[in-house]
């Protein structure tokens, strides 16, 4: 028995003025960035004023969107058509941050795109929340540099932070976020929390205790815990490292409250009714399993799921001819030594039908576990998607 899932109505979501944020998530390499960009283009061409926050676009796709620099500034994407089909005539990809009022009522839409610079985003938070001297201390500290550029989870956290900033700016009618290339789809939801827990951890409090006690000599008021820690760390790492660490931790204390508060705000934003999560998966076991976890997780967090996009599906234009019949016919021709071309083509077709059947089964697994989740399909293109035409085509397929 085949189970049919409800269809995901992409245009209804894009056209709904109440949709303010779309988050594309899923495991690595499934097509999140491509989907985010295609949704952005489609929404803009349907008249909305959109910004797409991408994390790791393929080089050529980035170029096609005018993203040549990693600079955290939304760039106007050229070549976007207005709803009546004309191309928008903006020249240059100059940064523009003024307010816009696109809407789906037929007025001209716009697409801006930006690439996340996680370190810069982190730096900006520090600068916004600490006085200049403190900020300088933090920014030059080796522990901060490590945290801001290589802590697993910083990228996820900064994507969220950037989303919050874009939303608070009020400049955008619709924000579409691509999520970082973590292996697991869930990393995206867990990472900010992990970073928060980490900064809130016991050790940080221990290390911060001397600073909190009024800036007196760091070693005067230490509690027993700190003594042990300090002794061991000095022995293993050396005194300078300990000093760096302490300076880092106490400076961080100043910006810490702001940190938490912002993380909580963004979290609430993700739960708001104007947000729509789009999960992307390829029709393969691992990706579909991740998608399932994600559906459950979103439900737990009470975050609004729009549906699942199954990307890179293989279909056949000759689907009526089954794999079995095709193989049998190929064998027949081969044994007679006739019609080599037809025999080879039938073999190819049989392989494709088998693949399509496997993919169909993976989808059915998903649908039997989550029968109410709407699904949209995008076929595998013969070539990579790296220009606006390609994105437009993906957008059409998403909506059909």
């Amino acid at each position, binding site marked *: 028995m085949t189970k049919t899932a409800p269809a995901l109505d992409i245009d209804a979501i894009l056209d709904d003025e109440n949709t303010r944020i779309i988050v594309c998530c899923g495991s690595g*390499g499934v097509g999140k960035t491509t989907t985010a960009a295609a949704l952005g283009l489609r929404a803009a061409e349907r008249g909305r004023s959109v910004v797409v926050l991408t994390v790791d676009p393929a080089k050529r796709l980035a170029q096609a969107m005018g993203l040549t620099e990693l600079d955290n500034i939304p760039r106007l994407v050229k070549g976007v058509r207005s709803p009546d089909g004309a191309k928008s005539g903006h020249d240059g990809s100059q940064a523009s941050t003024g307010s816009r009022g696109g809407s789906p009522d037929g007025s001209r839409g716009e697409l801006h795109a930006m690439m996340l610079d996680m370190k810069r985003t982190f730096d900006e938070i520090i600068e916004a929340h600490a006085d200049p001297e403190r900020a300088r201390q933090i920014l030059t500290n*080796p522990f901060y540099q490590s945290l801001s550029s290589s802590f697993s989870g910083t990228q996820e956290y900064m994507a969220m932070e950037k989303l919050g900033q874009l939303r608070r700016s009020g400049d955008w009618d619709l924000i579409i976020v691509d999520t970082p290339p973590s292996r697991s789809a869930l990393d995206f939801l867990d990472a900010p929390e992990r970073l928060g827990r980490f900064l809130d951890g016991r050790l940080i409090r221990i290390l911060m205790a001397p600073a909190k006690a009024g800036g007196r000599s760091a070693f005067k008021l230490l509690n027993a815990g700190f003594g042990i820690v300090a002794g061991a760390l000095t022995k293993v790492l050396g005194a300078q490292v300990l000093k760096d660490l302490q300076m880092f931790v106490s400076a961080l204390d100043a910006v810490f409250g702001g940190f938490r508060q912002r993380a909580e705000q963004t979290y609430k934003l993700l739960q708001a009714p104007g947000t729509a999560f789009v999960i992307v998966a390829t029709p393969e076991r691992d990706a579909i399993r991740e998608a399932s976890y994600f559906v459950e997780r979103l439900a737990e967090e009470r975050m609004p799921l729009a549906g699942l996009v199954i990307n890179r599906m293989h279909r056949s234009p000759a689907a009526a001819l089954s794999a079995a*019949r095709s193989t049998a016919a190929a064998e027949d021709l081969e044994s007679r030594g*006739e019609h080599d071309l*037809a025999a080879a*083509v039938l073999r*190819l077709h049989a392989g494709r039908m088998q693949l399509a059947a496997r993919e169909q089964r993976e989808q059915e697994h998903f649908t039997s576990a989550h029968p109410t989740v709407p699904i949209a399909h995008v076929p595998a293109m013969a070539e990579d998607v790296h220009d606006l035409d390609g994105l437009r085509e993906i957008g059409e397929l998403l909506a059909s």
Partner: protein
Amino acid sequence: MSSRDTDWDGVRLHVVTGKGGTGKTTVAAALALALAAGGRKVLLVEIEGRQGIAQIFDLPPLPYEERKIAVAPGGGDVYALAIDPEAAMLDYLEMFYGLKRMGKALTRMGVVDFATTIAPGLRDVLVTGKTSEAVRRRDGSGRRVYDAVVMDAPPTGRITRFLNVTQEVAGLARVGPVKNHADLVRGVVASPETAVHFVSLLEEMPVQETLDGIAELHEAGLPVGGIFINMVRPVDLPKDVLDAAVKNRLDHAELALGLKAAGLAGGSDDATAIAQALAQEVVDHAHRTRLEKRERATLAKAGTPRYELPLLADGADLAGLYELAEAIRAQGAA
């Protein structure tokens, strides 16, 4: 020991990197089996705490302990170790400072977690350090314990930093114990006894990442190994058919005749319609094949040995691993 000539004779540490999802863990496991074949002893190391090795060999989660997990074709043992940076840190404290009890206290207080999480490069140096130790380890009679060590390493985007340990801990320690340890590790990782292999697919992004990664390694003075092109689909059609298809010059009439001869079409109209649909499929396939050919040519520019591993129809299960190991040996990578 076998005296086959392989491309990596003399290499004892094989580091396997690649874009996420291209098959690093799978290829690392297959390479370990291939290297162990014929009676050798190989250690397969995992570092990201994902228990990918256990999954692929269908085993319960691996502890922080070397244990035998598979027997290679023709005898030979594959051992596995899942390195946990926290445990490696405790090892290190105990080994170099005799701080066993202190280590426990530090763990309880979250210090170990903290240090291995954000101390610049400390986590990496602990993991590479543990691996180097296994590479160098000798038994009582002075013989190497492992003939080779294979590491399922971080993805391409992080590999150079990960291996470039001395650079990484420079901000942490210019002198002192950590620095000495890093220098020791660097001695192993940057030596001709190490090779960093890349796993790629015949797709644009993984190919680009591979070339970028190779360039970075060269720049950092780290030893570049081979490229394992994974999930290669068989070429199902003869070249002349593919060429005709990309030019849209496929012989529809001949195809329709063949379909009729095979009894797949009722009448001529029917045959023509099916032929047209199938021809579309062939055109798609031909385009993809051409794209793959282009990516293959791009990879060739890296100038390092390349090996092709087939796409396994049933995914990479245990039987599939042995198949990949065989392909690795047949092409002289092990």
